[in-house]
């Protein structure tokens, strides 16, 4: 769907991660499905590397 057409239709939003973005939309009565997500291991590169190697 071209971008302009998308914005003219009813917007359906799924927000992943920071709830701030979802809040900005819900405050304007736009329904948002909020998916709670954080980077693995809080973004710690050393732990992410370990997790990757442990899943190999």
């Amino acid at each position: 769907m071209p971008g302009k057409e998308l914005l003219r239709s009813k917007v359906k939003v799924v927000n992943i991660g920071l709830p701030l973005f979802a809040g900005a939309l819900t405050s304007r009565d736009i329904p948002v499905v909020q998916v709670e997500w954080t980077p693995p291991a809080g973004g710690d590169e050393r732990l992410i590397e370990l997790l990757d190697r442990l899943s190999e």
Partner: protein
Amino acid sequence: MEIIDRANEITVGRILDAEPVLVDVKPAGVVIEGLGDGMILHAGPPIGWDRMCGPMRGAIGGAIVLEGWAEDLTAAEKLAGSGDITFQPNHHYDAVGPMTGLITPSMPVMVVENRNFGNLAFCTLNEGLGKVMRFGGNDEEVLNRLRWLASDLAPAMSRALADREGLPLKAIVARGLSMGDEMHQRNVACTGLVLRELAPSLARTSDNPDDLAELLKFIAGNDQFFLNIAMVMGKAIMDPARGIDGSSVVTAMSRNGADFGIRVSSTGDQWFTAPVEMPDGLYFPGFSVQDANPDMGDSTIVETMGLGGFAMAAAPAVAGFVGAGSANDALNHTRSMMEITVGRNPEWTIPALDFAGVATGIDIRKVLETGLAPVINTGIAHREPGVGQVGAGIVRAPMACFEQALEAFAASVGVS
């Protein structure tokens, strides 16, 4: 890694294959090997007197007076700090205890035998709510109740359990889940079910109707009586899951009021600790968060086996009691715990989730991958010694425990 997945399957298999049976109630000094005079077992990972919180110190003072090692609480506190008392974690002695979790030689402990693996586990009897030793209470009322538990209730339960050759526990938990219990902050149904099971044998083995009436009234009047049974059952279930090479499953979570500790199967009995967090909860009238002590107790063994906060969906009433929000929030808590576990328990199911089995086998890798820390329903003690319980709430296991555990676990499977 396939080796980890296989090891975790074995670990969860052991958890599911457990057959915990409450077999006896005996003085701790008689049944816990190595527990002698001058020794106190406590909740959580190891801790010395100098770092213990107020309620832990208060309970220890009371326990020392109870044992007759000091005349009064002042002398008891002096003795506790003198170095002449040995403090050891319950978990190092096959035992668990709620909140302060103290076990001293004269205190009666329930004995649960895991009949499929042959191991025993121990836990004290639940004293009731409010001003009790597990929440730091230590006055004469508290000590007299403990003396009555030892002189009356414990021998009566021992006789009753012998009369009926033990009390199998898994079926009671299964029914309790369908009756609105999660076995940490709500034990109304399971307490009633246990009383129903034990009452005929208690009556048959009693020679004094007044004494019988008193102990039946005590159990019936204490909605949390089953909590300690759930805990000792949990310890008996989880201990055979320890020490499995390559397994990233958590075998114990526990708090001493200062540190939160976890153990992981493949790294054996090593503790991974981090500062405890403050529960987010509701307070009894007259108390507030300013009065609250940080997180404490071995009762997180309940969550470790998949109940308590993990099974909150079974107990919508508890969501209100601990300030967790709506019944829908309770469902979400349980669903989220399914993301950090290896499997489900088909024998313990939750009606509100289309009879899905409770989440079983916390995998430290999944905790870190998802950022979802185990959720725990807990009581809240007053921060000062001698006061008791002031509320109940929800708390999370600190992520730092899992971060340390992952490093050690990776090394144990040759990954660095």
